[in-house]
Every structure is written in C-alpha cells, then in structure tokens.
C-alpha cells in the first residue's frame, strides 16, 4: 500500500471525525443551550409581566414536559385535587401556564417563575366564580413553599424515574427520538439531582412555621442560595406585597420591603429576580427596567368597582384618618415609606412581631451589597433596619390579610386590641368580605381551600399596631369606609 492511500484514508477519517464532532456539537448546542426568543401573546408590558422571563429558566427552570406531568404523577403531594391550580396559581382563560410562569427555550423548553407569581392579586365575588386578576397586587392564594415542597417530594419519590416520566409524557404527546434520549439520559436525572440539592438548601424551612398561602420568607432563601450567610434561627415569613404606584416612593428614596431593607427600586427589582432564581449572567436587565418603569404608575383597582361605598360615612372618616393615621400612612406624608425602628417610643408600646425585621441582619446586608461587585448592576443600598416601614395604603382593601406577617384577617380587626383579634384563621380563599374588608377567613370553604394560620406560632403574632384601637365603634366604621376609597 502506498503512502498516498494511507494518507488519503487518514484524511478521510479525520474529515469524518470532524463532521461527526460538529454534528454532535451542533445537536448538543441546539438541544441544550440554544436560546430562542419567547413567544408571547402580544408585546404589552402586562403580558411580559405575567408570562415573560426574568431570567429564572436557565438555572432554576424545570423542563416543560416534566413540569406538565408532575402534578398528574404525584397528586398526593398537592394540598388538594386540582393539579398546579391547587397551589393557588392563577390561570387566565386559555393560557398554557399560570400567571407568574414563563416558558423559555434554552436548548429545550423550560418553565420558570417571574414577578407576577407573587404580585398578582385575585378576587372572587362568589365562591364558585372564576377570580379576577389584578396585576401588581399581592397574591393571597399562591403557596410558594408548598410548590417547592411538592417538587422536593416528587424528586425524592422512587417513582421519579426517566421511565415513569417518559411513560407519563407519552400519554400527552409524541416526543422525537432525540428528545426522548435527552429526557431519559440528561434532563430527568439532572432535574431530580437539582431538586434534591435544592431540597437540602430548603431544609431550614422544616423547623419553622409554614409560609402558607400569600406569604413568603423572601430573604432567607437567597442567604443560603447565593449569599453564603447562615439562616440561623431567623424567621422571615411575611405577606406578599403590592407593587402599585411606586413612583413617589422611588423618587423620594423611600424604603422598600416590609423592613425597608433597600431604598433603591432598581436594586429591589434585580434582587427579586435573583431571589426567584435568575443568575448574575441570566438577568435580563432591559426587561427588568421595563417592569420597573411600569410599576411606577401602576394603579390599584378601585373598591367601588366591585362593592358600594357609603360616601357620607367615608367623608366622615377623612378627619379620623387625618388625626390618627395620616402622619405615617398618607401618601404625601414625610414619614410614609420610612422605617420605624422597633423599640422606638413612637410605637407607643405597639410593636408588631419582630421576626421579619430581625431576619435581615447587617451581615446579610453586607453580603448582598458585595454580591454584584464587578457587574454594572452592583448593589449598594442593602441595609439592616431593625424596624418596619410605614406603608402607603393605596389599594389597601385588596391587600388583606394585614400587618407584615398577614396575621390579621380583616381590616376592621386591625382596629381592635390584639386580644380581640382572631387567633386562628385560614388564608388563601379569595372570596371577599366587603363589610369587614378582607378575604373570607373562616367557614367550610375557607378551611378547605386555605392554609391555617395560627397567630400563636413563631413569627405569626398578631400583636401591635394599636393605633385606632381605642376609637369609638362609629368612628371605626367611618374610618373603615374611608379606607375603602384608597
């Protein structure tokens, strides 16, 4: 055999090898990494807020087909029959995913969460009606911890195997051979592994009271996930918050979050996306800025569109509000949006539950301020305050339950002494009681749908905020009526 022939054979082999490697490389890139633009129903900011990406799919997204079959495979780990909707997710008519979930193809379609998951309020006028959705309001129905736990329990279950998941997927679609291989050998095992790691990272939640529907411990998870700060025995359980009407607060440099741990809206939004599962590299800064701009003038829905208001009574309430509440709560008051530190005499002995404030330590604030070093979006405004913000009251009627930890079911109860407030009630049933101002928190339906909140548990105390509790009953009625107009 001549050298030329050997040479030529070697060359052919090399070319074949190169072709093979590039085909495999292209396939791997196409099926694992290639980012495709999201297909949203329209270009509106509302649509993006509900279903657009805030960068959580890359690291925290769940492969679409796994996400679709999990509730069918493990219904026993859901709080009630109803698939994902049993966790209180809000589903608009005809949508593939609930509000607050985004689908993005990075190699393969993945499902992640976004801001709207916690910041979309719902309201039903009757128990069997479909809820109406109000963007930017606090969710009172979603159980974020139960969602995490469902995923952890499913991943821990011996039935979470490639074979079982593909068998379940085969009931709803025909996957291509390459997708089947991808799911069997990569995505299912990797998803399981990632969820089990996350389960470890969430072990601390087992030793403290549940968040329950409409609440979240927003800053202990990032301590572990990204800041490397020990959780210790802190408890940060708090109500989800409204993000309406942020312009006056942003422009005046007022505080955000219940304890005012940051005064810069841009940082607040970026850190929220990180908390949802975005990474330093996946943060979609332009999209987040678009959301930020939109929240500046986003308005709450009006109570009067759903229930009647007694205008005479409401007018009578103005003066009571001015005397007893306005200093801290009127939009244009200098104290509104500032922190009242626990122990300050201004509390007049009425401090509310201290756990949420104590959760955000100086150590954690320092760590978060260092987290973005070297990135254009670096943080510098995190701080530990040791108190709570005097919140503005726009749309307060839809922000029940009340106090930062959602320990008071109705606004009329917040005007009673703590001893008179309900000890145990149910959160997450979004039928509204317009007389008491709050979501129905007792009775068979509320018990069936909702999660139990025991105000005697750590972090759940309904003490404090005594302002207005000594008013005469008719003054309270008038004040309440006025509060309906906000």
């Amino acid at each position, binding site marked *: 055999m001549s050298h030329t022939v050997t040479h030529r054979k070697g060359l052919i082999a090399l070319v074949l090898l190169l072709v093979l490697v590039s085909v495999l490389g292209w396939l791997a890139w196409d099926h694992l990494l290639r980012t495709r633009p999201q297909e949203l129903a329209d270009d509106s900011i509302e649509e993006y807020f509900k279903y657009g990406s805030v960068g959580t799919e890359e690291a925290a997204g769940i492969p679409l087909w796994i996400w679709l079959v999990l*509730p069918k495979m493990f219904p026993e780990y859901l709080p009630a029959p109803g698939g994902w909707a049993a966790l209180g997710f809000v589903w608009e008519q005809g949508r593939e995913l609930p509000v607050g979930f985004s689908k993005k193809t990075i190699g393969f379609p993945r499902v992640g969460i976004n801001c709207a998951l916690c910041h979309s309020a719902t309201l039903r006028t009757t128990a069997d009606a479909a809820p109406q959705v109000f963007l930017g309001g606090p969710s009172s129905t979603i159980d974020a911890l139960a969602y995490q736990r469902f995923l952890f329990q499913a991943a821990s279950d011996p039935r979470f195997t490639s074979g079982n998941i593909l068998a379940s997927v085969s009931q709803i679609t025909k996957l291509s051979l390459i997708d089947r291989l991808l799911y069997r050998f990569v995505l299912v095992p990797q998803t399981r592994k990632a969820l089990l790691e996350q389960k470890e990272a969430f072990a601390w939640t087992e030793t403290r009271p549940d968040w329950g529907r409409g609440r979240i411990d927003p800053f202990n998870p990032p301590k572990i996930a990204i800041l490397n700060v020990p959780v210790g025995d802190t408890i940060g359980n708090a109500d989800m918050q409204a993000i309406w009407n942020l312009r006056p607060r942003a422009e005046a440099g007022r505080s955000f979050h219940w304890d005012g741990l940051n005064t810069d809206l841009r940082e607040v939004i970026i850190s929220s996306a990180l908390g949802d599962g975005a990474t330093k590299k996946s943060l979609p800064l332009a999209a987040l800025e678009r959301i930020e701009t939109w929240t500046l003038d986003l308005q709450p829905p009006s109570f009067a569109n759903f229930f009647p208001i007694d205008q005479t009574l409401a007018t009578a309430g103005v003066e009571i509000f001015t005397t007893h509440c306005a200093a801290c709560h009127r939009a244009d008051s200098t104290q509104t949006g500032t922190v009242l530190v626990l122990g300050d005499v201004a509390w007049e002995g009425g401090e509310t539950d201290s756990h949420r404030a104590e959760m955000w330590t100086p150590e954690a604030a320092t760590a978060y301020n260092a987290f973005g070093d070297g990135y254009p979006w670096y943080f510098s405004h995190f701080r530990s305050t040791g108190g709570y913000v005097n919140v503005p009251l726009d749309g307060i009627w839809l922000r029940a339950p009340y106090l930062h930890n959602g320990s008071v079911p109705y606004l009329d109860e917040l005007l009673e002494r703590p001893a008179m407030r309900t000890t145990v009630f149910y959160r997450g049933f979004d039928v509204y009681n317009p007389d008491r101002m709050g979501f129905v928190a007792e009775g068979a339906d509320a018990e069936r749908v909702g999660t139990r909140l025991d105000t005697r548990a750590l972090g759940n105390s309904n003490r404090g905020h005594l302002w207005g509790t000594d008013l005469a009953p008719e003054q309270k009625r008038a004040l309440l009526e006025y509060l309906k107009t906000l």
Partner: protein
Amino acid sequence: MSRKTRTKTRDQVLIDDVRTSPVDRDLARTLRRFVGWLLLLIIVLIAASLVRRFTADRPVDYSDPVAHFKYGSIGSEPGGSLLEAAGGLLPPEPIFRVLPQICADKLPGGYAALGFLFEDGHDLPIGVSKRLRLGFHQVGLNCSVCHTGTVRDSSQAAPRIIAGMPAQQLQLQDFFRFVLDCTLDSRFTADNLLGRIEEAGIELGWLDRLLYRYVVIPRTREQTLQLATSLRLIMGDKVTEWGRGRVDTFNPYKGMQFNWQLDRLPLSELTGASDFPSLWNQEPRDGMELHWDGNNDSVDERNLSASLGAGVTPVTVDHPRLKRVRDWIWNLPPPPYPYDVDAAKAAHGQAVYRIYCQECHADHRFKDGVIDGAKVGTVEPLGSVGTDPFRLHSYTYTFAANQYTLYPESRYRFTHFHKTNGYANQPLDGIWARAPYLHNGAVPTLRDLLEPPSARPAIFYRGNDVFDPVKVGFVSDVPAANGLRFSRFDTALDGNHNGGHLWGVELPAEDKDAVVEYLKTF
C-alpha cells in the same frame, strides 16, 4: 488450504492430501456469504414484519358518513406505542365481545340490555369502532354511542334508530361498571377468555393466543385496575346515579385526564350527571355558549373535549376522522316530528311562545339557521333559571385551569373553556326527540315542564323509547319493557332536582297545550 481424504480400496486405505482449488475456495466463501446474507435477510424480514404488525394503525373505515358516525373510529382505541400504550377504555375486540359471556350474571341480556343498539350486518353495537392498533384488533367508543337514540310508536312497534339524537336509552354508567367489574373478576382468566373467544368463532393465530395469554390479558387487567381505582368514587354508590340517558361529563375527566384524587373532593362536586344532548345542526351553534353550563363557545374544541370522554388522548386522537363526524353534524337536520301536528293549535302556540320563550330559545326556524332571540345560546344565571345547581358547580374554575394544559404544545390546545354562573339557553331544534328535559333530565315531558315544579312528576322512569305524542316525551311510568329495565329517577336526590325554569307555568292549560303543539314543529 488442504484436507485429508480417506479412500478404502480392496486392501488398503489411501489417504490423499486434497488441495482445494482457489475456485472451490471462492465458491465456498461465496456460499458462506450467501447463507449469511440469507439469514440476515430472514431476520430482517421477521423483524420488519413484527414492526409492521405492532406499529400498524388501520381503522375500519366506512364511506357513508352515517355509517362512519355509527361505527367509524375517532381514535379512542388504545394507541401510542407498544412500550408506552396510551388511551383506550375498552379491552381488545375479542375480549370485548366475549365479556358478557364471561360474567353472564353481571349482564344478563348482553350489551343490548344496557341500551346499546345493534343493527343487522354488524357484530358490534352502534358507537363501538374497530381499529388495528398495537398489533391487535381493538375497539373504542365514538360519538354515536351517546348520540344515537331510538323512538317507537308503541311498545309493540319496532324502534327507529335516529343518529344524532340523545342516547336516552343508554346506561353508560352501568356499562363502565360492567367492563371494570368483569375485567377484575376472578373469571377473567386466559383459559376462560381464550375458550370463549374460540367458542364465539373468533379466530386467533398461535402467536396471538400466546400474546393474549401472557401480555394482553394481564395488561388489560392491570390497566383496568388503575382506571377502576381512579374512578372508584364516581362508579360507586355515594353520588347520585347517572341512570339511562345521562352522563357525568366532567368528573371522570378529572380522574382520567388529570389524575385528581377524587376522594379529596367534596361529594357535592362529584354529583354532575346531565342529559346527553343532540348533535344535529351545529353550524348555527358555533360561537354560542355550549355544554349545559355554557362553558365553551367553540364547536370544534367542544367536540375534541367530548371525544376525550370516549377515550381518546392527545396521542391517539384521529383528527381527520373526527373531522368527518364534525362535517356531518355541522348541517345534519333535526329529525322531523313523526306524527301529525294540529296546525291551528300550533299557530296559537307560536303566539304564546313568542312572548314567553323565544328570546332565550329562538323559534322553529333555528333548524334552518335562523337565530331569532337575543339571549339564545347565552348563559342564564343560576339565580334566574333556578334549576338544579349540582351540574354547574361540578365544573370548577380549577378544572378549567387544568383543561388549558390539554393538547399541550399543539394547535389543538384548549383555550375556550371557562367557568360560568348558570345554564345556557338552548336552541330547541328537534326538541321533541330530546326528552327528558332540563339539563339533568329531571322532567319527563315538555308538557310537564310547563307545570310548576310541585306538579311535575317526582319519581319516574327513564330509558323507555315509546313516544308519548300528547305530552311530548317518552313514556315514563313503566319500570320495564322489551327486555329493558328502566332507570328509576328520584327528583329528591342531589343533582336530580326538577325545580326552576318557571317560564310559562302560570299559563292556562290550553296555552300550554298549544305551546307543546308548536314545539313539535321545531
């Protein structure tokens, strides 16, 4: 290459060193190669024929649209792939056919006793389709099982089969109970089944017999056990019986499509039986609020959803053949009233009808596509119509949310379903053949519906197909006839209430009679 050969002569043995010639060697090599290739070819052919056998998907087709409606496949037979079978509610055809003999005590009278309709020239009843899938002859249900009814003039007369009419005689719940029970019965063994199949003259080859014994029969049991577990509450006796002519559309769906744990739902939500509707004249209905509670305004999506109830899945559905049915019912005319109509009386009735009924129900011209009535096909709030609330409440917002995940990542994904707060105002084309009345079939005749609830029959029997031309509806005071036991209907039970729909109940008797006469012309 060489070998020794021994040749015996008279006195010695000669041993030759035989050298094979290159030609011989080449021949031998060629022969070996040939045999090798031949073997490979045989293996490939066997593999190909097995693949062909187990991947073949061959529905039995009918060129006539009515025959297709009655016997054609919409894909509800088990399908998917051999390793991951999907869909299907019924066992393979040979088993399905002998099932009534295996458990004769559970179903004396066979499928006909459940109201299945048999026609000459067909070995399976109307509503059961045949299809070769996964290597076996399968059966499935199609639209006509619930949407073909019979009418007879008297108990002695022969029944007339009307395709597209509600199957008011069909005991669907007992049918599912029978199939589930018998499949899990101790007599459901390979020996028993294969014996019965042979007796019935159904031929199975040796391979089929083996596969039936070791794969098909055990797997049928296994799948049935799962199905029976998920539907236990619905097929049990804790919620009101469907009875003949009714189905609980959405609760089985919760269990089968979404694997909800039904025992964690309130029993009230699991009570939702309602009448089968008619299928004719769909074109003018598109865009109206369809289903009894008006939860969907797309005829096509409603059809696709209904076929899930027959057992199709997003993987097994046969869109082209479903479309054939859709195209046929699109303009299928309602059956004309088969008896005489008193024209003068009907004309008087029309005048009354125009005042009391037309706004919601349109007039007799709906059968020609004329929609004359502002509220036709819209939802009447429960507080206004006042009929039994159970069916409405069994369809929940949470359930609708789950429906939007059906047919994922495809153009068929459900988007039209929605929760409503009442019952839809139905057009009344062919209303004479749609008895009993109200969504839950709680009122046996049209004339009874025009009486106040207290004067409507409190207990009656459903499923008789003998027509009552005076009250317009089926004879409802006979517990059994023509080998069928009818369903006793107690209006005091949850889901069976006959209250509400009070329009016209205060009219004088002759006006009511006239309205009923006019309704015969629809």
